[in-house]
C-alpha cells in the first residue's frame, strides 16, 4: 500500500481545508439562529399524553426502585397499576388511535421546519463541495482504516490501490459537520441547534416533544414488564452493610 509516497500540495490547506471548515461552521451558526427564530415554542403534548408518559414512567420507577419500599407498599402500587382497574390495564386494552405523525399538523410543521433547516444546507454545501473540490485528495486521517472506508471516504477518486486513510474533500466536510459539536458548545452554549448529530436524532419520529406513537403497545409492554417483576427487599442487608463501615 502506498503510504508516505504521496505528498499533497500545501495550497490545499488554504484553499480546501480551511474554507470548508469555515463554511461548515458559519452554516451551523446560521442554522442555530434560524431555528430559534422559526421555533414553534415547546411542543406541549395534550394533558392526556402527559398523563400517559408519566404513568409509564412511574411504572418503570416502581419496577426499578420499588424494592426500596416495604413489601406491602410495593404490592399495593403494583396491583393499582396492573389490576383489573389499573391504569396500565386500561391503557393496554384501549384501542387508541395511533398517532400518525403525518396527520398531526403542528408536529408535521415542526418536523418539516427541522428537516428544512438541517438537510437543506447539507445538500447545498455537499453539492457545492463535490462540485468545487472533487477529483483530488484533501487530507489523510492519522490512523489506518480498512478498505471498507475507501468507498465512503474516497468518493470521486477511483484509485483501487490507494490507502484508505486518504480522504476526499467531501469526507472532510462531513467530518467537520458532525465533529463541530464541541466548538458549537463552546460558542453557543449547550443545547444548540447547530449540532448535526442532535439534528439527526430529532428527526426520528416521536423524538420531538417525547410523544409516543403507539400508546397501546407501550402500555402493554410496561404491563408485562411489571407483571413479571417480583418484590425483593433491597434493604434486607442494609444493617449488615452499615455495621461493617
Amino acid at each position, binding site marked *: 500500500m502506498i503510504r508516505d509516497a504521496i505528498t499533497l500540495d500545501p495550497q490545499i490547506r488554504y484553499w480546501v481545508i480551511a474554507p470548508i471548515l469555515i463554511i461548515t461552521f458559519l452554516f451551523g451558526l446560521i442554522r442555530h439562529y434560524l431555528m430559534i427564530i422559526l421555533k414553534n415554542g415547546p411542543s406541549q403534548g395534550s394533558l392526556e399524553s*402527559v398523563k400517559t408518559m408519566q404513568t409509564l414512567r412511574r411504572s418503570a420507577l416502581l419496577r426499578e426502585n420499588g424494592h426500596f419500599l416495604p413489601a406491602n407498599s410495593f404490592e399495593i402500587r403494583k396491583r393499582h397499576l396492573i389490576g383489573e382497574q389499573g391504569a396500565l390495564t386500561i391503557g393496554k386494552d384501549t384501542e387508541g388511535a395511533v398517532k400518525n405523525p403525518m396527520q398531526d399538523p403542528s408536529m408535521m410543521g415542526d418536523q418539516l421546519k427541522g428537516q428544512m433547516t438541517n438537510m437543506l444546507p447539507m445538500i447545498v454545501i455537499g453539492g457545492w463541495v463535490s462540485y468545487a473540490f472533487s477529483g483530488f485528495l484533501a487530507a489523510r486521517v492519522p490512523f489506518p482504516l480498512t478498505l471498507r472506508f475507501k468507498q465512503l471516504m474516497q468518493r470521486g477518486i477511483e484509485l483501487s490501490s490507494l490507502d484508505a486513510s486518504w480522504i476526499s474533500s467531501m469526507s472532510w466536510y462531513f467530518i467537520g459537520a458532525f465533529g463541530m459539536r464541541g466548538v458549537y458548545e463552546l460558542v453557543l452554549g449547550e443545547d444548540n441547534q447547530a449540532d448535526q448529530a442532535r439534528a439527526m436524532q430529532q428527526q426520528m419520529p416521536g423524538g420531538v416533544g417525547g410523544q409516543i406513537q403507539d400508546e397501546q403497545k407501550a402500555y402493554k409492554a410496561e404491563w408485562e414488564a411489571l407483571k413479571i417483576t417480583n418484590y425483593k427487599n433491597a434493604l434486607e442487608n442494609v*444493617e449488615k*452493610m452499615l455495621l461493617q463501615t
Partner: protein
Amino acid sequence: MEGINSSTDAAEMSFGELRKTLRKFRENGTRNATVTYKLGKYMCDNYSSKLGNEVWDVYEQMFFACIDLGINDIGLSYLRQIKEQFPESKRVYRLIGVLHEADGELAEAEELYKEMLEENPGDAAMTKRLISMYKTNGKTVEAVKLLVSYLETYKCDNEAWLELAELYLSEYEYEKAAYCFEELILISPANYLYHQRYAEVRYTIGGAENYLISKMHFCQAARLSGNSSNRALLGLVTVCETLRGLKGVTTEDKESCFKLVKWAKEKLTDKYEKSKVEVSDACPKKNSPKMTDHIDSGLETVCAILDSVKL
C-alpha cells in the same frame, strides 16, 4: 458574588457586575428582596437602555422584590410596564394574581387563577400558584384536593409530592404522608433525606412493624449520607432502643438493634467530640446578676456601642 449583601452599594458596581448578579439570582431562584431591589433599581435608573430585552426579566424580578418588601404600589408600576409589552401573556396574569394575593384581594386572585386554569388545565405553574394560595389562607382541604389532582397527571414531580407530604403532616395524616414519601423514594432512591423523613413518619405512626421499617430506612439514610447525617444516626438509636423495649419483637431483631445502637453511638460520640463547644454552665435564673447591676456607669458607653453595631 461573594460579599454581596444588604450593605453593598450599587453605585460601586459596574453595569456588567450588576447584570451578572441579577442573572445569577434569576438562575438560582434567589429571592433576596433587599439586594435585588437595590441593584435592580440602580440598574433600571441608569442602564435600562443597555439591557435590551433582558429588561423585562429584570422588571419581573423587581416586581417580586417589591412584593416581598411590601411596597406593592411600586411593584404595580413594574407590572404595568410588563403588561403593556406583553398584554396576553399567561406569565403576566400569574404576576397579577400574585399582586392580588399581596394586596389581600384573595378572592380576586383565586378567581383569576381558576379562570386561567379553565382555559389551560395543564398549566402546572398556575396550578401551583393556586395551591400555594389555598395553603396561605388555611384552606388546607382545597389545597390537598388540587394537589392530588395535579399529581394524577404529573406523577413524578418531586416538589409537589413533598408539598403534599407536608400538608398531610400538618393534618396529622401520617399514613398518607408516608405514601408521599414512598413516591419520593421511588423517584429518587439515592436521596437520603427522603429515607430519613420516611423513617421518621413510620416511627411516628408506631407499632412494631412500622418501627422495623423505620429502622431499615434510618440505616439506609445513614449509609447514603456516608454516616454523616446526625438525624439518621440519632433516629437509628431512638428506634432501636424503642424496639428493644417492645414485646412482640424477635430476639434476632433485638440483637441487631443492640449492635446498631452501639455502632451509631460510637459514630455520634466521635462527632460530639469533634464539635465540642465551650459553653459556660451558668444557665439563666431569676437571681442571675443583671447587666444593670454591673455596668451602671458604663451603660451609656455600652448603649452607644450597641447602636453602632449591626449584623
